[in-house]
């Protein structure tokens, strides 16, 4: 069985229609915990993208030899292996960024989004489609994290990627770790609002 979507559609689907953070409401822990700056979001996004693509491809390759009854443990161990790889690579080459992420890199292993994509997509499709689906989901997560980081960094510290943009700090509150809850909630409400306005305009 192969999907009838083109590669581009698969990528766009991951970024917009099924955005992991704002649409599927999965993998919320890092979205709240470490989305304080654009850079943090980008780094974790890269790690998730890597794990998602690699695990999707691995499962798509081996789907015919995995017994259905033990598929979930197999997915978990596959993800754990790739997380170990990215964990050790980051610790070796980017120790500073790694220290900022803390435990969250290791926790990628428990991200519901990755397991879900393996179960729903990679275990049924061929390796090419799985690759592009993985890219789409990874990018969707990365862009979601960066959008959160953008809002929080701009409002909290008046900077973007470390450069001073505003010259003052509008709402220091947004830098606090717990402001992640408010930020995610407000942004979701904002996207809901856009959708409502869009539908109303379409109907009129």
């Amino acid at each position, binding site marked *: 069985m192969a999907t009838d979507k083109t590669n581009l559609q698969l990528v766009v689907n991951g970024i917009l229609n099924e955005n992991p953070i704002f649409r599927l*409401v*999965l*993998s*919320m*822990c890092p979205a*709240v*915990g470490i989305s304080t700056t654009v850079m943090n979001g980008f780094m974790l996004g890269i790690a998730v993208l890597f794990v998602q693509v690699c695990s999707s491809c691995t499962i798509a390759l081996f789907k015919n030899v995995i017994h259905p009854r033990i598929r*979930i*443990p197999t997915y*978990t*161990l596959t993800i*754990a*292996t790739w*997380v*170990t790889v990215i*964990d*050790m690579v980051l610790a070796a080459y980017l120790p500073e960024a790694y220290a900022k992420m803390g*435990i969250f890199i*290791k*926790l990628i*292993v*428990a*991200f*519901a989004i990755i*397991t879900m994509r393996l179960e729903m997509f990679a275990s049924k499709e061929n390796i090419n489609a799985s690759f592009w689906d993985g890219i789409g989901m990874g990018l969707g997560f990365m862009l979601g994290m960066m959008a959160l980081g953008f809002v929080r960094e701009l409002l909290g510290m008046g900077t973007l990627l470390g450069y001073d943009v505003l010259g003052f700090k509008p709402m220091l509150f947004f830098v606090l*770790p*717990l*402001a*992640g*809850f*408010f930020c*995610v*909630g*407000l942004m*979701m*409400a*904002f996207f*809901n*609002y856009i959708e*409502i306005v869009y539908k109303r305009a379409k109907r009129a």
Partner: protein
Amino acid sequence: MTTHTIRRILLSLALVLALPVLAQAQDLIAGKSFGKAPNEILVTFASAVDRAAVENPANYRVYEEQDPDIKLNLESVVLAEDGKTATLTFREPLNARLPHVVAVSGLAESGAAASFKVMKPYLGYLLSILVGSLLINNFVFTKYLGLCVFFGTSKRKDTAKGMGLTFTMVMVVSAIMSWFFYQFILKPYGLNFLQIVVFIGLVSLTVQAVDTVLRKVNPALFNAFGVYLVLVIANCVIIAVPLILADNEYNFLESFMLALGAGGGFLLALYLMSSVRERMELANIPTTFKGVPIAFIVAGQFALAFLGFSGLTLF
């Protein structure tokens, strides 16, 4: 008088003679504790001591019990007016969670060093780990872990209770197993890099085992809690706890307390959240905020409230 009795008398005589030597360190020091400031240790001597010897920092050797090679920087020693209580001030704050060893020389006439251990009461320390992971470092509200399941299962109080209890149970069992694996297999054989793979495998195994055992032993309980078991695997707290206890080198009891606190904290968070969400169904909420967005705002307010626990120190 038989030789037997003579031998016994001689033995007890020898013991009486030897006792002061054995008890010397204990006799000299009446009390010791960590001081009010984070960089102080208080020592109370049993009788008045030589002021010059006590107040000379060179006579002391202080180190954390696990690192005997790293000598801590002692800045000054001040003996109080009564000549009994000495305050040891260090250049840097001490980690009061660890037992410290203090060796003092030049006090006794023989010149032998008296050494003693300074540590917090162990039970209090265990309780502080429990309360710490329950309230101060609540995994949901201050560490932002386990949010997917937290938002997914906090709509009804019954669900919240079931999920919380199942979770605590699995948490404790898997943390104990992870501790054994870490201490006796991963560490001795230098396999630390396999932490993630091994811990997640253990967690899946535990969930599967609890599932099977519960199904056979208590079908009623299984019917009530079975559905939550699958969700437990997708929760990051369950993998975070083994990683944390491996990082901090906790011992068995400490690991148990951490797991219990993490599970209890999750139960507490779920219950609080579900109470609010049941009420919110009756409230008039703007359409754009309905469902998940308002839940996030409420969670944020809980997180603000839990921030108030951060100054809490017990024991």
